[in-house]
């Protein structure tokens, strides 16, 4: 029987929704499913993974694990795989998770497939490749299988259940603790992050000026979503890099992606085209985004968006 371990990333006292989504997916594939939470002061987070399908949640508590650095996490996960016999380790994409997964792959000689949007019970992953022009079915030939899933690949749907919380052994390699966190400068976040959001409202050059990002922010707030930006406006200093979607930013697949004043150049498209539903507002009728938007509106976003925000608010109240 398959034994699956899911890396549960956390930030500011909550398990990332992306990790819970992967856990919920793992629970549908059968076999034994466990999660692992690594950090300092994270014990109370562990039980929260039970409803999403973990029958066991391992807690690795140690001051040396407080900073979100990858290498000590490789040590913790490698011990669990070896001692407890997990044959599959799953991760939701993030800067940290990618480094942990690749380090673990090299440690265990375990195959790693990345960028997956799905996984079947018989071990076939779906991997959109080459700017999503081809969907590759990938498999594993190694004893231990590792996978990184694209942001928003799965819903974090609780199915009930409780987890047994257990202590994971913490034994760190010398080289794993050489890197040290000096400072963390994290912007205060309102609403969900782009990785965790079901709805993303993204702004591009067509907003006209940086102040007009308030249009995107207000619509996002009304829809309960997050704000993203194109590379052009991030480069122009209108919005922070952490919000950048596209080839050099994040790849997201929310349930709804609203593109405001975004032309839909290939560099942006590759970061968002796997969104379930895409709505685009652009005044240029020839903008490439209309080729792949489910609903394209040719018009002035400066008049449409405030009205839409009001309508959404009215409907939700």
């Amino acid at each position, binding site marked *: 029987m398959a034994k699956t371990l899911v890396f549960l990333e956390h930030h500011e006292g909550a398990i990332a929704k992306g990790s819970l989504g992967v856990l919920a997916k793992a629970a549908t594939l059968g076999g034994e499913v466990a999660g692992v939470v690594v950090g300092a002061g994270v014990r109370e987070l562990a039980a929260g993974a039970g409803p999403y399908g973990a029958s066991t949640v391992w807690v690795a508590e140690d001051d040396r694990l407080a900073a979100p650095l990858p290498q000590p996490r490789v040590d913790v996960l490698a011990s669990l795989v070896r001692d407890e016999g997990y044959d599959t380790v799953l991760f939701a994409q993030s800067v940290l998770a990618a480094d942990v997964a690749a380090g673990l792959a090299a440690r265990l000689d375990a195959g790693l497939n990345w960028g997956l949007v799905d996984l079947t019970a018989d071990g076939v992953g779906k991997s959109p490749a080459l700017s999503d022009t081809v969907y*590759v*079915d990938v498999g594993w030939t190694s004893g231990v299988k590792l996978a*990184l899933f694209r942001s928003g690949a799965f819903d974090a749907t609780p199915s009930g259940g409780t987890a047994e919380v257990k202590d994971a052994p913490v034994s760190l390699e010398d080289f794993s603790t*050489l890197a040290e966190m000096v400072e963390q*400068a994290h912007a205060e976040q309102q609403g969900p992050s782009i990785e965790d959001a079901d709805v993303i409202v993204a702004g591009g050059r067509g907003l006209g000026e940086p102040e007009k990002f308030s249009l995107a922010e207000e619509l996002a707030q009304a829809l309960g979503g997050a704000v993203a930006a194109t590379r052009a406006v991030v480069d122009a200093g209108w919005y922070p890099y952490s919000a950048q979607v596209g080839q*050099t930013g994040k790849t997201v697949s929310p349930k709804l992606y609203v593109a405001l004043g975004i032309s839909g150049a290939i560099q942006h498209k590759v970061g968002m085209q796997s969104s379930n539903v895409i709505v685009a507002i652009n005044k240029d009728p020839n903008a490439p985004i209309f080729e*792949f938007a489910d609903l394209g509106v040719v018009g*002035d976003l400066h008049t449409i968006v405030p009205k839409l925000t009001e309508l959404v608010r009215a409907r939700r109240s």
Partner: protein
Amino acid sequence: MKIAVCVKAVPDAASGRRIDPATNRLDRSGELTISDWDSYPVEEALKLKEAAGEGEVVVVSMGPERALDALRKALAMGADRAVLVTDASLEGADLLGTAKALAGALEQESPDLVLFGQQSADGGGACLWAAVAERLHRPVVSQVSELIVEGSSISGKRQTEYGYDTIRAPLPAVVAVADSINTPRYPSLKGIMGAKKKPQETRSAGDVGGAEVAGTTVVALNPPPARGEAQKIDDDGTAAEKILEFLAEKRLV
């Protein structure tokens, strides 16, 4: 200071990238070019060398023998020499095989600092550095948008989902740089002319410790799923209502 920059020769975007259905591998038969993101670590290495007033910048890659032509761009920018690990047994290598080959070559070079770009232009896993650092038993810092060398350690500013982290690590270290770190220089004519004469050496899999068995496999290639019927409307003053209606229909509000 000796800096190794790991780069990848990828099929030129202009001539199109495709997976060969006969081998289920990326078709590398056309012209190869250095991956878009690899000129940033090359630039960073050159800047560090220039600031120190001494040192060596070595470009390290794995790929077909023809990849040497692509590596020449890094030499034209100013790198001192190139090392290419090339071997029939490495064709189709996945993360494990690539990490082992590069780590083997890097061990022989024993640089003070190993740099990577933020992702490759074709595979795009954006995690190879962590596997290489694991093999080398050295610290790793990724997505670095500012890099400072302070004596025998580095300090890197890492971009994450939540903001910026400043991470310090002793040398030798492995660092992957983001494309916001610098603006790569264009090779000068003199640089281009001189690149061919710079040392370019190939090593076999055996030279760097043998090939690794792949842990992953490609099972099948499929076309992307079709999107539903697309609607395009012109705003006649009721666009906001129409969008709301559409969202309600899809149960998104």
